[in-house]
């Protein structure tokens, strides 16, 4: 199975690779900006799992490069994982549109740009799976991260539309909605231990959800309930909360 990982330096992506390495004849195509790290990671995968791995330079925000990037892959993927993302700094994004745009383009626009190319190929081949890592942060806007949250909201909506469209082409689209995950993205935050997932566990959960053909997956499971509660708070009250 050819597996294309976009944003492969993400800690979550690395553990997704570990979980998918048990797929028969797994060949990983690792794509991200930092190719020095990718070189090490691809070597690690080949040693750790005795699978094939190669790596490619890819920038989600360099939209015009995407078609060429995809065309140049030596073999077309059977599975594509969108793992790149940028949390950014909310307060900076409020003052500096450049930064806001970077957050939006990384989490949303870049994903649309590359996934439309992938979708066209999968639709033509009548097979394939797309896994997108969005976030529970997209389920309700909060003052502490609404630029990131709104981009993730758009991405979640996009994935659900894409799933609807690709259904008839025998292409499966899965949306992952993690809560807190202990990765380099959150390493400087003091996260509540009980609600924070380990990326290794998340990686395995993604594999399991994939094997079962799930459409959306929350992780940890408690987030499903938490977000239900958060979403049911009336706006007149919610706007006063400091979340």
């Amino acid at each position, binding site marked *: 199975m050819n597996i294309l990982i976009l944003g492969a330096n993400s800690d979550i992506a690395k553990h997704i690779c570990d979980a998918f390495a048990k797929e028969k004849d797994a060949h990983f195509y690792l794509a991200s900006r930092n190719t020095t790290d990718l070189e*090490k990671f691809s*070597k*690690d995968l080949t040693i750790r799992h*005795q699978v094939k791995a190669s790596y490619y330079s890819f920038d989600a925000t360099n939209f015009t490069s995407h078609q060429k990037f995809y065309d140049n892959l030596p073999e077309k993927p059977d599975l594509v994982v969108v793992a790149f993302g940028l949390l950014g700094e909310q307060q900076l994004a409020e003052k500096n549109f450049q930064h806001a745009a970077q957050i939006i383009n990384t989490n949303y626009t870049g994903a649309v740009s590359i996934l439309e190319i992938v979708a066209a190929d999968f639709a033509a081949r009548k097979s394939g799976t797309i896994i997108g890592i969005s976030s529970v942060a997209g389920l309700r806007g909060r003052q502490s991260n609404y630029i990131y949250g709104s981009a993730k909201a758009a991405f979640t909506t996009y994935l659900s539309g894409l799933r609807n469209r690709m259904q008839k082409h025998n292409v499966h689209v899965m949306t992952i909605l993690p809560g807190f995950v202990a990765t*380099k993205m959150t*390493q*400087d*935050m003091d996260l509540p231990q*009980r609600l924070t997932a380990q990326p290794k566990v998340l990686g395995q959960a993604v594999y399991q959800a994939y094997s079962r053909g799930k459409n959306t997956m929350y992780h940890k499971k408690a987030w499903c309930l938490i977000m239900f509660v958060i979403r049911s708070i009336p706006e007149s009250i919610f706007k006063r909360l400091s979340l």
Partner: protein
Amino acid sequence: MVLNFIAMKIHGWGKYPYQEACIHHASNHSELRKVIQQGNCIARGLGRSYGDSALSANVISTQQLRYFLDFNPKTGLLICESGVSLADIIDAFLPRGFFLAVTPGTKFVTIGGAIASDVHGKNHHHVGCFSEFVENIELLLPNGEIVNCNRQQNQELFHATCGGMGLTGIILAATIKLIPITSSTIQQRTIKSANLNATLAAFHEHKEATYSVAWLDCTAKGKHLGRSLLMLGEHADDNNLVRSTPRNLNVPFNMPSIMLNRYSIRAFNHFYYQRIKQDEVHDRVNLDKFFYPLDSISQWNNLYGRKGFTQYQFVIPLEDAEMALQKILGKIADYGNGSFLSVLKLFGKANSNYLSFPQEGFTFALDFKMEPTLFHFLEQLDRLVQDYNGRVYLAKDVRMPADFFHATYNKVEQFQKIRASIGATDKLSSLQSTRLGI
């Protein structure tokens, strides 16, 4: 990126003490150098050391150093980054017929931590410490320079870093030798001994066994003092490398510490000893169960409650071992609040590392729940240990007095000289090294 990190409360495996620390991540070397220059800095792996050896105001986590860099199946030589855990290595290489030459009682320790504590396993009497199988260490010095240390190059630094508790630099990567095996199971023999004399005799009688460790009933007194179950192990050779995944339990919350009292502990020990009916039992167990019985209960350190616990591990040279153990076990039995699991092992010869713990003799380890009388009691044990030329293991320690440490580790001065020569003295320190004046 700027050097502002939020402080977090962290602790060792014993959950005592808690320390407010800035956590830095070891990914970018030039940034690391800046962090080290701030001083009060120490490396941290998986935090499985019991006490305060991986605690400081600035902590460098090796969590991001997770890569395998090279493996040669002909020689068994593995090069990996220091944050790789023993569990990662077993997961990847057991199915291919390789195992660790030396492993501690948990697989959730990093290569960096295993080297820095120069850990020992149940086969120390044959093969020595972890460092015997370390062929090279890539070390980041306080000045930012990265050097290789091994038995040919920077030898002194190599011998100081193995067992050096993170006080010589940040281990970035290491080359270690794995051993070939042909089975994922262990042939186990369990031998029951009725008292200390019989227990020690059983160790000597079964010296040839590759692995040996005894669980000892630390609550037994009088003629039962030192009764034990000695577990011996040999790698099976059934050419079956399939690993059965162990079941997992979890202790998600601190247990009320009242649950652990002299009665529950005595009952547990009694039951554990009596569960083996015959004098000798042969069976076959999977490797995880033999080496890592506690790993199937995640966060078992919560069992001891909110105030935490510590482990007291000492070694006594062979010649006086029986008499010393008799006295110490007597004291522990009187104290009453001993632990569920106390473990006795036979050590082989000491190596030439400056701060490595093992020396030829018997080592005994047991847990104690934190309580106001504990440290005073342990100081009494220290005195006995010192009288019999023994010492206490740094990886478990959270309280030994500095003078006791200096009196029992005889190469501290040389170690300090090496530390000074690389500018580490006022840059790298843990709560432990400060307490002990290393």
